[in-house]
């Protein structure tokens, strides 16, 4: 028999040395694993206790249990808040303190800034993706809230393409500020929905009884037509916080007005759903879905789930007292509304907390609904419209107080 002992020993020693050196090299490279960019299918923005905030990414909502403190990244709340725009795994946020629009990616260890663009004296009211790489921001000047501005941004390199004043009239006749609640492109024209507010005293306000819908040529941005509608007011809302509009399969555009105390503070007017038909320059005057008449309450938030059906999120005025407890008290219900038949069907979900939240994603034959229940915990519920099945999916536990928002990354 041939003696091979020493050769085997040498081989074993070399292997051990390689493993050891590799281990040391990997261990000594700072943050190698933590710097790995994560681009999972969905993003979950969490409000924890003591104002801690986190972002978690996941590839599915159907099951599981995440704790943000171990499964997510903790955010620096001095520079970011939940009014983020999310697309293709990137997070965009304008910080009103330092006037910097930042672009972030999520790594295993942090939300990492990968680009910046200075935008001074501007607050975002609405965003709209003109193209996959072109983001349109509409909003107001940060001092008077009376001048309406837009910024068109190439997000690949985060460069400003175009900016300027929008031809929205400044408030007058005692009205002191503007709100832009809708921004969308329809058949090559830019449509804006807006209204005006009157400051009653240092901390009280009201809203005009009129919702304005203006169509503009694009890219010249010249006014083509303005609809004034007094059936309700405050068209849409700040869509960086919650969604209020959509296009159906036929290209018709639907939006919700929000005169309740959480937006318009004109509770004498009803919440309603309105429509601009495909190819039209003006509002469909024959269409009005009076939501308040249907549910005897106001609603905030509208998400399309297909087949002429949408989900709305409705407050319960018998359960909250005023703005002091509107956020904390569990009083929100979800309804599926039929946009053509104008009927409603309440979903059998626990009462939800949080005045305005981005909490519904429709994808394929599934709808995911994030609910912050005081009794049942924080869950993503999975709703199947075809079977009306509604089951608990992913749980958010640990330091989770609220699920602020859920978004599709891609």
């Amino acid at each position, binding site marked *: 028999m041939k003696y091979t002992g020493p050769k085997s020993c040498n081989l074993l020693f070399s292997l051990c040395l390689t493993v050891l050196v590799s281990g040391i090299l990997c261990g000594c490279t700072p943050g190698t694993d933590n710097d790995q960019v994560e681009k999972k299918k969905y993003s979950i923005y969490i409000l924890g206790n003591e*104002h801690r905030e986190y972002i978690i990414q996941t590839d599915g909502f159907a099951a599981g249990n995440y704790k943000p403190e171990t499964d997510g990244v903790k955010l620096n*709340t001095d520079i970011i*808040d*939940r*009014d983020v725009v999310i697309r293709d795994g990137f997070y965009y946020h304008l910080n*009103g*303190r330092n006037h910097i629009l930042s672009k972030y990616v999520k790594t295993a260890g942090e939300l990492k800034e990968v680009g910046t663009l200075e935008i001074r004296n501007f*607050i975002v*009211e609405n965003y709209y993706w003109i193209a996959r790489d072109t983001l349109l921001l509409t909003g*107001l000047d*940060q*001092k008077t*809230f009376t001048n309406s501005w837009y910024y068109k941004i190439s997000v690949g390199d985060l460069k400003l393409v175009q900016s300027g004043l929008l031809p929205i009239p400044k408030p007058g006749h005692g009205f002191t*500020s503007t*709100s832009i609640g809708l921004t969308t492109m329809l058949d090559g024209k830019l449509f804006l929905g807006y209204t005006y*507010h009157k*400051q*009653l*005293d*240092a*901390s*009280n*306000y009201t*809203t005009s009884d009129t919702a304005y819908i203006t169509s503009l040529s694009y890219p010249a941005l010249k006014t083509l037509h303005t609809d004034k509608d007094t059936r309700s007011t405050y068209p849409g*809302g*700040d869509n960086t*916080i919650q969604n209020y509009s959509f296009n159906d399969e036929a290209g018709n555009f639907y939006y919700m007005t929000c005169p309740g*105390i*959480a*937006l318009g*503070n004109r509770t004498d007017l009803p919440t309603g759903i309105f429509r601009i038909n495909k190819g039209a320059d003006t509002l469909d005057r024959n269409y009005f879905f009076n939501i308040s008449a249907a549910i005897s309450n106001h609603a905030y938030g509208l998400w399309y789930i297909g087949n002429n059906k949408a989900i709305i999120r409705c407050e319960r005025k018998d359960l909250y007292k*005023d*703005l*002091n407890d*509107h*956020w904390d008290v569990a009083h929100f219900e979800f309804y599926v509304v039929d946009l053509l038949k104008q009927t409603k069907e309440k979903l059998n979900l626990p009462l939800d907390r*949080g*005045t*305005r939240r981005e909490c519904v994603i429709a994808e394929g034959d599934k709808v995911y609904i994030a609910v912050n229940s005081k009794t049942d915990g924080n869950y993503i519920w999975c709703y199947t419209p075809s079977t009306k099945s509604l089951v608990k999916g992913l749980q958010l536990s640990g330091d989770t107080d609220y699920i602020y928002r859920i978004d599709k990354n891609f």
Partner: protein
Amino acid sequence: MEINKELLERYHQGNCTATERAAVEAWLQEETFGDEVPVTDMPENTAAEMWAEISTFADKPAPVKTFNFYTFGKMAAAAVLLLLAGAFLYRSVSQPSLQGVSASNFSPTEVKNINVAGYNVELAPNSNIKLDAKTGLLHFCGSLLFSPKSDMELSFAGLKQKVKLKTGQKYIVLSTNCPSDKPIIINEKDVYNLPPVMQRQLSTQFSI
């Protein structure tokens, strides 16, 4: 010379003759101290009486320690009372007494800063504040940003329960009525929970 009591007394009084002094000092230098005290037998009846007295308790078995719940409860209650008293004293000592304030801001545009012991206030334009130091009751009109320098509880007109305010945090206090009957008190970090029109107003006023 016989050394006796009278001689020793005269020696200490300085009344001895030279001979007597020499004799006393020679005696003091001796290593022996004379005869030992004679040990006399104790009378039998005295010894019997003493033993009888001692035996009244010497014969009893040693007491066995038992766990008495009643006694333990009293001890525990005392300990709890002591702890509570300590906590109260610590709290009284550690929490500075509240300083009252009464101020108005008539400026239509500028925020007025009020810095007193225990808290800071940024008073919004056209707002006023009155904080009663004795009752801890806060009346106000308009809006303000309240920054406590230590944990405290305040009462607000229109609210039944006291509101706990934590050091290091800033609280937006506002009301839609004047004088405030339904105040809204939120952490500045929760400003996004308010309607956008109020957010903008407050964010601009207080540079949030």
